[in-house]
């Protein structure tokens, strides 16, 4: 019987959502054009070529190497793209994703990505077109609510702050705003004003966000009540501790 990855323990909606993020089986909720994505990322002008740091691999005459033969380069690597980033900030007030689950989503489902996981933000560095593929996926699916998550390259504080009165996560640089019921991006990741206003669509309702979120909260799905998750945390803790104490114990 073929092994089927289980990804994550737990019987609650939060645990189920975590499994979805990890497996990549998430619902697509919106469409973002390639040009709009390029604008809000802020790395290059829409329609321009990807800047490269080396010639295409096919032209480089690579050395003989069994690993290179074994591993198919990503499209970005093949083309010689530079390394660029996408960085998400997710509110702790039931934003659909959390830094670790964005990272797991990236690391499990995408190749050639280098995720960095912090408390207030989650960055992925990759060859530019590979990064864009990931960014588009996470932005267009249920992993992202445009009001409770935001692309922020710098000045990222907001994930733990109370929401604005209109339900949008605070951003000191006001990169997005709620306008006529939809979220409009007015600055790129590092806060540079953009010429074209990009519409990311409607925010999730409070109920929808609570249903899709991957964070445990006492006012939604309390962590304390997901016994299986706690049991597995304990198990991992105990195994690591005992292994360090005396590896033979684990045999």
């Amino acid at each position, binding site marked *: 019987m073929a092994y089927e990855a289980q990804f994550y323990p737990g019987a609650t909606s939060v645990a189920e959502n*975590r499994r979805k993020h990890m497996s990549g089986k998430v619902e697509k909720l919106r469409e973002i054009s390639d040009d709009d994505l390029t604008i809000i990322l802020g790395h290059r002008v829409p329609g321009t070529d990807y800047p490269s740091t080396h010639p295409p691999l096919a032209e480089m005459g690579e050395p003989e190497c069994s690993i290179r033969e074994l591993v198919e380069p990503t499209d970005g690597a093949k083309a010689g793209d530079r390394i660029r980033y996408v960085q998400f900030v997710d509110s*702790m*007030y039931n934003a659909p*994703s*959390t*830094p*670790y*689950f964005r990272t797991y989503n990236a690391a499990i489902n995408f190749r050639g990505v280098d995720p*960095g*996981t*912090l*408390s*207030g933000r989650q960055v992925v560095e990759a060859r530019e077109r590979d990064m864009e593929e990931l960014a588009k996926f996470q932005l267009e699916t249920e992993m992202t609510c445009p009001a409770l998550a935001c692309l922020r390259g710098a*000045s990222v*504080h907001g*994930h*733990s*702050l*109370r*929401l*604005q*009165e209109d*339900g949008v996560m*605070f951003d*000191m*640089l006001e990169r997005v705003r709620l306008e006529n019921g939809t979220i409009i991006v007015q600055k790129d990741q590092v*806060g540079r004003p953009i010429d074209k206003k990009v519409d990311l669509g409607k925010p999730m309702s409070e109920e929808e966000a609570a249903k899709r979120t*991957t*964070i*445990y*909260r*006492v*006012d939604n799905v*309390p*962590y*304390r009540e997901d016994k299986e*998750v*706690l049991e597995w*945390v*304990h198990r*991992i*803790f*105990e195994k*690591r*501790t005992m*292994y*360090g*104490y*005396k590896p033979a114990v684990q045999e």
Partner: protein
Amino acid sequence: MADDRKRMFQKDLENKFTKEHGTNKMGGGDITDMRIPYYRLGVDQNPRKLEMKKVGKEIAEKRGLAGYNPMMHCGGIPLGQRALTPSFISGNDDMMVENDDLHYVNNAAMQQMWDDIRRTCIVGMDMAHETLEKRLGIEVTPETINHYLEVLNHALPGSAVVQEHMVESHPALVDDCYVKIFTGDDELADEIDDQFLIDIDKQFPAEQAEQLKSAIGNTTWQAAHIPTIVSRTTDGGQTTRWTAMQIGMSYIAAYGMCAGEAAVADLSYAAKHAGVVGMGDMLPARRARAPNEPGGIPFGNLADIIQTSRINPDDPADVTLEVVGAGCMLYDQIWLGSYMSGGVGFTQYSTAAYTNNILDDNLYYDVEYINDKYDGAADKGIDNKVAPSMDVIKDIATESTLYGLENYEKYPVALEDHFGGSQRATVLSAAAGSAGVLATGNANAGLSAWYLCMYLHKEGHGRLGFFGFDLQDQCGATNTFSYQSDEGLPHELRGPNYPNYAMNVGHQGGYAAIAAAAHAGRGDAYALNPLIKVCFADEMLPFDFSQPRKEFGRGALREFEPAGERSLIIPAK
């Protein structure tokens, strides 16, 4: 129990977030509100920022060179896009301070705490006395010791005793420099002039005094504090050198020795090496620090430097929390924050653990939980402790962590106050770790609870701290009880340079607290070194080591008077 409990942070957070400070418009609302208006008032809403802005402008005009200008922030979007709020020093009712004033540069008390540690060493007298008596046949009596101490208190600040035509340091610049002695020998202590004696019986509760005197025995030690101004101009390695030099000269003067006789070398060797105890060990070359620098101070030593355990021995949680504050300031703000990283942001991480009573609330909740479930195990004592099993660690760490996480979820202002995951990780783990220790009396058991808390936190909120910080917190469980000696060191002997701790921002105070809690919880007089505990039981030190958090507050309020000032020798302003 958790739901009904009145939170210790409630009043502070109400004052901080629902009352106007400066012109931040924070009047009204409730600390459970999840949405608020953001006024984006910039730095002008805050009194201290306004003062800094005004001074920055004056300095730039005076020197003709740009300086502090808050509009340089984010290309013209200054700090204060959300409300700039003050903080309250934990454990001290209504001691409100500006956050800027908890940066050590802006806080004379913080500077002095570190000065007082760095400029201190402990030097044994017994080897010197043996040299004098057995080699030179010189009689050593309480009278000669008193005379020697009078000479040394003249010489230690930088004055001449046997030389002629010598320059000397001005006594008004070095008035914080002195030496006292202590001993476990009651008979000798009785004969020592009061001015020179740290009287263990007077400074410590009887039970602790007995423990200390028993540990120290009939040995006699000098607690030497070189001038702050000297220590600041040089480094921690200077402390023993300066002290040894003045001790050598004072022996020569007090005992009528020949300045060139070989025995002097023995006295110097004893004072510089064989009989000296520093506060911190030398660091490896890649860290390039002398002895008596913060990275080399073991957590157990810091636990002993802090004196709350002799002032408030029946409240081990309070002892623990004072060590958290001191450790966060010294290890995180000064050591990691400046020595190691050169950044300015570490203050924000560290102050979370000693402001607004959020950690205090978590730990005192844990004490109630432990005492309720484990029959008073968190009270001071030895026989009441629970055996440190994996089940006990899991139970206490889990309850502590869930309670703390839920507070962040129920009280959005608490989450906002600890706006970074690193802050929350420190506070939650300091509570869980200290609670595990208070229940078991075993520091490594507390450390184990610390690491379980990290795992629980990460899984609960899907986030923890930052890259390197997470890495160390996620691999730490494996070396808590490691059978390999370099990994599994007893916690009291670990320090900020311990491999997994070398860049754990905000954590060091919590680690030090675990070392303190293990022994305060048992009612021990000291955690690691009885000599250090006694050395700092001295009210003459400018910094009051029995209540470091209050001292930091006094520093922030500009009420603390430090040592080592240069006013005497500079033009009056």
